[in-house]
């Protein structure tokens, strides 16, 4: 009879054991998936939108039926690693690149990434028959590149006896004026907004309307205070206007503020943001601008304004003492911008 008891016990424990099996399968996925290979981090922020970080300025990759649309191309020396990271996400070709400014860490990868892609136009190489269009239209079969006209001006300007960037990386679809440039790519409305005289005179904000992802371009850099390139047309007033525009373009999760629905903003460097983050960044820049403007109004010199520590409260996070863009360089740029004749 004891055997019957053990049999019953074994049966009950066996059923309990079976019931425990699914446990290993219930791990939920993180909100945003990421992987880092060869120093390039790929973050998936929407089902068809990825951010590639670590190869120069952040790159946005929008994947759809046409192929891959890139916003910015990173640095030239990172192109192979960027391509390898893209190939882990999709086997689609790069079809179009939009540049948000003319800096080397945004456009340096244009040539290699465009060459690895394929033009939107039908293209047959010369002497192979069929319609080829001209080389400028088709970029010799490579993916097309769109940017505000000043990007082309900067990239094609001669430095010494040769252009700043090789011709095959220049924008093939430059646009002019201050009207919004609108395209429909990958079943998504893509709008490009030129921001005159912000970081420079060649900046754009790129908005994927359906995906609700915005690339801020160089007007937001979460590593430092925003870089204002006065000598290339940048200004503190234009930068704040651009940040205001960015705030107006982003949608917060209101009215259900506890919900995670919202517009994502991809800055030039640093983590993916939302409207609240952009507001904090914009407000910081406005506060510092006001402090420096107050010093200018009181007739203080740049050196005297520096001594008032106008970035205090923010410099620990955004104002390094050394490096590419320091606390002093930012204060100097704001001062120069506020005191220039054109301001």
């Amino acid at each position, binding site marked *: 009879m004891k055997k019957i008891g053990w049999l019953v016990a074994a049966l009950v424990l066996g059923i309990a054991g079976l019931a425990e099996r699914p446990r290993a399968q*219930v791990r939920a996925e*993180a909100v945003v998936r990421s992987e880092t290979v060869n120093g390039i981090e790929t973050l998936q922020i929407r089902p068809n939108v990825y951010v590639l970080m670590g190869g120069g300025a952040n790159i946005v990759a929008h994947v759809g039926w046409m192929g891959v649309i890139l916003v910015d191309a990173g640095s030239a020396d990172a192109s192979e690693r960027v391509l390898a990271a893209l190939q882990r996400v999709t086997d689609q070709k790069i079809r179009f690149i939009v540049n948000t400014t003319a800096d080397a860490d945004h456009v340096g990868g244009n040539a290699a990434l465009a060459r690895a892609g394929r033009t939107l136009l039908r293209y047959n190489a010369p002497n192979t028959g069929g319609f080829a269009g001209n080389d400028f239209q088709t970029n010799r079969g490579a993916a097309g590149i769109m940017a505000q006209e000043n990007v082309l001006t900067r990239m094609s300007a001669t430095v010494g006896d040769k252009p700043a960037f090789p011709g095959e990386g220049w924008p093939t679809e430059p646009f002019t004026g201050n009207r919004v440039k609108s395209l429909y790519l990958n079943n998504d409305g893509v709008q490009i907004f030129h921001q005159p005289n912000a970081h420079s005179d060649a900046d754009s904000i790129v908005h994927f309307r359906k995906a609700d992802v915005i690339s801020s371009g160089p007007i937001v850099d979460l590593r430092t205070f925003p870089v204002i390139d006065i000598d290339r047309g940048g200004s503190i007033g234009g930068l704040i206007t651009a940040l205001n525009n960015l705030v107006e373009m982003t949608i917060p999760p209101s009215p259900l503020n*506890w919900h995670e629905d919202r517009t994502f903003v991809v800055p030039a460097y*640093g983590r993916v943001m939302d409207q609240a983050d952009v507001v904090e960044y914009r407000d910081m820049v406005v506060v510092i601008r*006001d402090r420096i403007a107050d010093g200018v109004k009181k007739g203080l010199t740049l050196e005297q304004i520096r001594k008032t520590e106008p970035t205090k409260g923010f410099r620990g996070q955004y104002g390094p003492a050394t490096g590419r863009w320091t606390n002093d360089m930012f204060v100097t740029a704001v001062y120069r911008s506020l005191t220039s004749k054109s301001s």
Partner: protein
Amino acid sequence: MVIRSVIRSIALTVVAVAVAASPAAAQVDFQGQWGAVNHQEAMGRGPGPDLADYTGLPINDEARHTALSYTAAVLGMSERGCMFYTENYLLFAPHNILIERVNDPVTGDILAWRISAGGSDRAPITVWMDGRPHPSPNAPYFFSGFTTGHWEGDRLVARMTHMKRGIMRRNGVPLSDKATMTLHLTRHADILTIMGIIDDPMYLEEKLVLTGSYRLNPRGNAPATNPTCFPFTELPVYDQAGAVPHFLPGTNHDADTFAKQYGLTLEAAYGGAATIYPEFRKRLQTTYQPPASCTRYCCGGGGLNLQASGINCRAR
């Protein structure tokens, strides 16, 4: 005898299964409605702290400078009208909370604890218990942060990362988005203590530790989510993009109001790591001159009416 033996075996087995099936790691049930016990720091939790009262905060000079430039007029900006407080508000807010257990639908294991904001202006906190990793530092930050938990005996220890920029005190002491927070949830019968340890490399000289207490309230009705919020500009002067209210350095007219009110030195009122230890209090005792009479909050803040209870709270 046979039947008795079988019954005994089944009973023993059921007990064994019951013991084995209960998660070994989860010792305490936090589920329920918890009413905030607000007699600790009642002023700060209720009507709000005095302006430029940074006592008890181990803040650095950068934080102090930012706090002195703060004006509550920023809440009139349409961009900020619906913006939540960051999750450390749990430690100095007056609201009740609802704690829910999120179960694995198959096994019944604890997937997460959800700590609601009681319908307040803080996002619910989800404490993931299923071992998932924290997202990349480059992933978006939400006002809920990202939190994982584990048991240390009967105490739930939860670590939050991905905190947004916010405040450490409602009078504008800043919290950076580099901050992290560790929560300790400890239940003693019907009392729940939540201790938070905040680490902010940008604005703190050392970690800030705060606690809050809650009493189990079977009649509580704190909701699981927050009310809706539709942003609009409350002050016409700020109804233009980029109008950001703040005090320029040296212009905050309330910079010393609190210190004067209580006869404190600015050094004491402005906080800092050195000011939160007994040694500083001893040093103050040699110079401290209490005000001749109480002129403000003499009967308590936050709606307390000590005078009605017969205490002559004006006498000193």
